[in-house]
């Protein structure tokens, strides 16, 4: 069975249905969770950025398992173990990493447009809120649409990251990538980068 993971809200609660998943034992899988009339969903590594939440669990899905566009689906699942390294500090680090990717993109675009001073100004802040403040200043001043947009995305992403809203920061980053690279495929590529960031941080392996 391919490895699968699942994000849950605090207390093993399914984020949209509100039902609580049963707990695994110290060395044994939890009981099979089979919500009546519904299905259970889980993630491969590439799916993780779409479903971010407070708790990350390794799960086993009951056959038949189908692969949808951004998740796995099965009639039942059970929790195997909690990925303890996914905690609040990991979420904060994730948001910050995504915002700093946007900074790289913004600096690149501004340099392309011959705006070296502004590019340097964005490179200096070491604090997310300060970065957001500086970027906000450029989002109305930049003369071209693209430069202004990237500065705007940076301000938004850094602000969300500073609030601990990692998923929001990451989504902004994926959108920023499209604007910077002028390629719709940049969105999914950025999401892949984000997925592998999570996997590296938490030591997940996809088989």
């Amino acid at each position, binding site marked *: 069975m391919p490895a699968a993971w699942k994000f849950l809200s605090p207390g093993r609660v399914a984020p949209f249905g509100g039902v609580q998943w049963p707990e695994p034992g110290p060395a044994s899988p939890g009981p099979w969770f089979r919500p009546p009339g519904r299905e259970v969903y889980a993630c491969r590594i590439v799916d993780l950025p779409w479903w971010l939440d407070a708790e990350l669990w390794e799960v086993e899905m009951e056959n038949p398992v189908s692969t949808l566009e951004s998740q796995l689906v099965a009639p039942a699942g059970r929790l195997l173990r909690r990925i303890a390294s996914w905690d609040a500090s990991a979420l904060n680090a994730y948001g910050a990493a995504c915002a700093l990717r946007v900074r790289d993109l913004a600096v690149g675009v501004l340099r392309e447009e011959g705006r070296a001073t502004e590019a340097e100004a964005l490179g200096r802040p070491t604090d997310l809120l300060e970065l957001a403040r500086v970027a906000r200043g450029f989002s109305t001043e930049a003369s071209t*649409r693209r430069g*202004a*947009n990237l500065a*705007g*995305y940076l301000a*938004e992403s850094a602000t969300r990251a500073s609030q601990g809203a990692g998923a929001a920061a990451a989504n902004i980053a994926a*959108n920023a990538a499209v*604007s910077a690279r002028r390629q719709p495929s940049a969105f999914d590529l950025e999401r892949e980068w984000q997925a592998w960031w999570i996997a590296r941080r938490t030591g997940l392996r996809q088989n």
Partner: protein
Amino acid sequence: MASPEPSGKTLEEPPVPPGSSPGLSAEDRLVLQRIAAGDEKAFLALVERNHRAMVRVALSYVPSEAIAEEVVQEAWIGIVQGIAKFEGRCPLRAWMFRILVNCARMRGGREARSTPFSSLAPVDSDAPPSPETFRPPDDPRWPGHWAQGPEPWADERLFNAEAARRIRSEIERLPPNQRQVITLRDIEDWDSSEVCELLGISEANQRVLLHRARTRVRKALAGWARRAEP
């Protein structure tokens, strides 16, 4: 209290629609048996569960709450008199509300229709909430996303009598169709299929009305429920 002869009310049960399973739920059956045997408690329990909803429904046919109350009492007379003969080919509540609707239509036809008078005091003016707005379609980065999003609520404010008063007040102000649907679904906890059957509307239509009603009630609460400035 005078007991007027129920006139023109049909107590006939509707034919069972094809594909549905006839017969009463076990709960309905028990209630009927006890009431037919003269059990007051069972009767009052049935009244408690349904009276408010009946007044609501009657209000959509007659011009005032006072007349609606009279119509409902007429309907109860018809229900009590017919209950021993009720064969249970449709759910008990559906039969009861058919009787009610017939009474209400008869009465509504005789009274002049006018806008229902709201007897509740108007809501005090609040500090206006920051208007919740969306970005326009030509926004460079986020068309259709929140420009000014909902301000967080202090949840505990939703649990007191003032919240109830404001909700009631806003429900009174809703257009009749929306008022009916939100009352039956969210206050009286009817299934969506029961509401659709009573009002003669589709599931999709019912959801639209429910959505509009809930959206307005939420908005009415927003000004008051939002967290006070620290």
